[in-house]
């Protein structure tokens, strides 16, 4: 376009830097190399809300969830460049947050291991009308009451960021087990939400430093 319009150099300082380096083949590279903040910011904007919700369902408090999200992005800043396939970034973030949770909170709480019968349970009857006015706090509170083996895949499922195959990868279990746990987890969650709805006016809350979520 310079040929037509004699536009001034408006590309910031990176073309100059690259000309200084004697490189003309790719001026794209310095934007990424010198300013990784751009792509990092895109990644943060896109995924931190869902990661926070996942962390909240795992750790139970907004502060602990925030720490998990920050730790996850800190690890990304340290190691994310090693990921060869950019399309795997989302899965990497969820997997890393889950592993961080396991390494920190399993030690603290020493969860008893739950032995599961993975065989298909009877498919339950559903009455969705009963749950038409759900709010986020009630769902998180109900998820908190669930066994972790169900809670983790179920939360990832309802966040809708990962497919069931990606969920299986993220938490390291076979695909069939994910399906079975989703089916049974949904049943458990429905029962918990039904209990909560029947206790009129009783809505569980969780709070943050900034205020109730």
């Amino acid at each position: 376009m310079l040929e037509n319009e004699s536009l001034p150099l408006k590309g910031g300082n990176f073309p100059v830097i690259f000309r200084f380096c004697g490189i003309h083949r790719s001026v794209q590279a310095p934007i990424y190399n010198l300013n990784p903040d751009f792509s990092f910011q895109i990644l943060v904007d896109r995924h931190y809300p869902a990661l926070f919700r996942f962390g909240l369902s795992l750790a139970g408090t907004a502060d602990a969830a925030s720490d998990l999200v920050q730790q996850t992005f800190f690890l990304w800043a340290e190691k994310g460049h090693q990921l060869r396939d950019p399309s795997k970034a989302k899965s990497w973030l969820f997997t890393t947050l889950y592993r961080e949770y396991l390494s920190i909170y399993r030690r603290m709480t020493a969860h008893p291991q739950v032995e599961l019968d993975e065989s298909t349970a009877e498919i339950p009857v559903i009455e969705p009308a009963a749950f038409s006015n759900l709010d986020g706090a009630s769902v998180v509170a109900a998820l908190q009451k669930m066994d972790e083996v169900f809670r983790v895949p179920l939360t990832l499922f309802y966040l809708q960021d990962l497919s069931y195959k990606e969920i299986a990868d993220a938490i390291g279990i076979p695909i069939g087990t994910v399906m079975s746990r989703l089916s049974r987890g949904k049943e458990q969650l429905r029962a918990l939400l039904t209990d909560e709805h029947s206790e009129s006016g009783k809505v569980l809350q969780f709070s943050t430093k900034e205020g109730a979520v």
Partner: protein
Amino acid sequence: MINDPRLILSARRPDGEDDADPEIAAAISAAQSDPKIAEWVEKQAALDRSISGALRSVQPPAGLRDRILTGAKVSRKQPSGNESWFERKVWGFFGRGELAAVALVMVLLVSAVIYNRLTDKPDERPWQVFAVAKAAELESGVESLEHKDAFLQTSVEWMREQACPAPYTLPEGLQSLGLFGCSTMKWNDKPVGIVCFKLGAAHEVHLVCINAKDIPEMLTERPMWTEIGGYTTAQWREKDTAFMLMSRAPRAELERLLEKKTALRIARRIPLHG
């Protein structure tokens, strides 16, 4: 082997994103042949949407985003004792030998530049960053447009002839701008098109087109605004094509350009022989 379609469909996300998955598709097909199961599937989907919507309405605490971004920037100030957990971790790392770390970073940067020149490795940048870099190249004159043309219709037609994603509809505001022309490029072997417009005397506007299946994000028809490398960008999707509009002009000017979309009138070129 799982036979009950309901068990498989328990893993089907309520937004329908998994419907192309062969196992899910087969289960949907099986469910449709049994009215009872079909009814169950419908109720399940309604319930899933309700729970998913409620969960996704939970908002992160105010300030978390800024803490993440601030924490990732390694500034050189000394810790005061009031830092967050994240900042303490960063300072713990740099306290061990800042000079050594800076020297190491310099060596790595130089190595990376040399490596980039010598090898043809896959582009690890997100497509948006790649596109912004391309626009900066075009604006600065480092690279020229492949197809210089003042007419939008013939430019779009040229892009399609190159088997490159191109718009079928465009906002009226964009259609009224002056045009420099267009180019095609490859991002990780995927075709990308860029159309360059003139916005007043001081700015340029670039429209990047890429097949939606070639990018990791699920964009929607509603533009998503982001600042990338000094450019204001709006990203959206229309049918099977993803778009990004970018400019150094203020966002308000770009928003005005996007107000109303209308179809492009492309005259089909008739071959002379056959």
